[in-house]
């Protein structure tokens, strides 16, 4: 379970997250929507400990992320993250990209790491691209590679930061399908997304962020069908 309590985050004087309270349960898929600059991506970076926070607390399975005593590298193994830019390691093949972290972080043997990498690449539909370098893959394939790379750490949670925003429109579908597949398998997911259909169809809950506040959170039917906040209504009208 991920618990966020009274989270405040500043970039210099900019107050990007203003008192966020949010819990995400095991097996739940939460989509976060909102205009750019609303702080939704920053929230994911904070959950993963990639950004320091100034006030409040984030707990992952009861472990405080920003506590100095927490072994953040160990905690991050529970939190797979997929970024807007796929960031595949250009000097490694698809298989090596996925096998690297299991090998050096989880200290698996070469064979074990290879087996899990193959399994995860097949999982995301890249079973025929094992020995291909990222430069020979399309954006959609590289993003699926990034998903496989995160999954190879066998995380308990997956954080998606606008995973389809940098993709050409015709490549968005394959990545969303992979995310859908994970959701169906019961993965706990937090997805910052601009894909409203994904948020509506796949999520258990949707949160709407506006200028550093979480304006509204609830089941998709409520957020999309009967939004309570005027900001949410305005935003949804603009993206429809």
């Amino acid at each position, binding site marked *: 379970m991920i618990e966020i309590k009274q989270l405040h985050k500043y970039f210099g004087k900019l107050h990007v997250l203003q008192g966020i309270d949010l819990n995400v349960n095991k097996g739940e898929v939460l989509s976060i929507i909102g205009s750019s600059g609303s702080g939704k991506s920053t929230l994911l970076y904070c959950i993963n400990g990639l950004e320091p926070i100034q006030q409040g607390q984030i707990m992952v399975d009861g472990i405080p992320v920003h506590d100095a005593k927490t072994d953040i*590298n160990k905690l*991050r193994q529970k*939190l797979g993250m997929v*970024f807007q830019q796929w*960031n595949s390691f250009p*000097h490694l093949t698809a298989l090596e990209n996925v096998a690297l972290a299991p090998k*050096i*972080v989880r200290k698996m043997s070469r064979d074990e790491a290879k087996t899990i990498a193959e399994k995860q690449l097949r999982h995301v539909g890249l079973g025929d691209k094992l020995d291909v370098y990222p430069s020979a893959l399309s954006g959609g394939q590289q993003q699926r590679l990034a998903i496989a790379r*995160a999954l190879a*750490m066998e995380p308990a949670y997956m954080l998606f930061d606008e995973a389809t925003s940098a993709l050409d429109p015709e490549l968005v579908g394959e990545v969303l399908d992979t995310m859908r597949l994970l959701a169906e398998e019961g993965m706990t997911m937090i997805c910052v997304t601009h894909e409203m259909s994904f948020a509506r169809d796949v999520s258990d809950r949707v949160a709407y962020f506006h200028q550093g506040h979480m304006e509204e959170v609830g089941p998709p039917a409520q957020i999309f069908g009967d939004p309570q906040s005027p900001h949410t209504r305005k935003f949804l009208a603009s993206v429809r």
Partner: protein
Amino acid sequence: MSEPISFFSGFQVNDLVFLGEAAGRTLLISAVSITIGTIFGIFFGWSLQASKWLAQTTIGTILDIFRSVPLIIQLILFYNFFPIIGWNTGPFAAGAVVLSIYTAALVANVVRGGIEAVGIPMRRAARSLGMSYWQDLRYVVWPIGLRAVFPSWVGVALSVIKDSALVSVLGYMELLRASQILITRTQEPFIILACAGAFYFALSYPLSKYSQKLEESWTS
């Protein structure tokens, strides 16, 4: 009537051996300086990148000085300065120390560029997989950054081989110094400088050829 005594004698095969030995010394001082300079340069470049202002104000300033002052001035200054601090050193050691620092100053910038070429998003992706700071440096930043700046590093190494000619002002018997001596004796500057140039080429060419091969193997 006796033959007039000549102070000059023509260029002989033996002189080629003499030049060859000098080329060996050029290679030695270059190899030592490039190796030491690169090791320190990597460390300096990393600290410049990792701890912005502290390293910038200390190491950064010193390296700027070494990068900006002509090498020949550095060599003469240090060669005369070392005995003052009680280190009576020969031309080789003095030359190697100065060339190493000079190389380190150039390599530091190359390394900093290499680390920056990898970019924050890539490093965050690595860290998000649970890699430690050092694992990220070793398995992600190093291989990617190396490929990005390797051509620049080769450029530095090649220029250090050529710049090592300046150590001749300290009296170190490297290629240029040997050529000057031969020119004085034979009065045949054209052929001797052509030979010396050929030796420099022979030292540099394998490095640039090998680096080309290496780069090709990375891109394939």
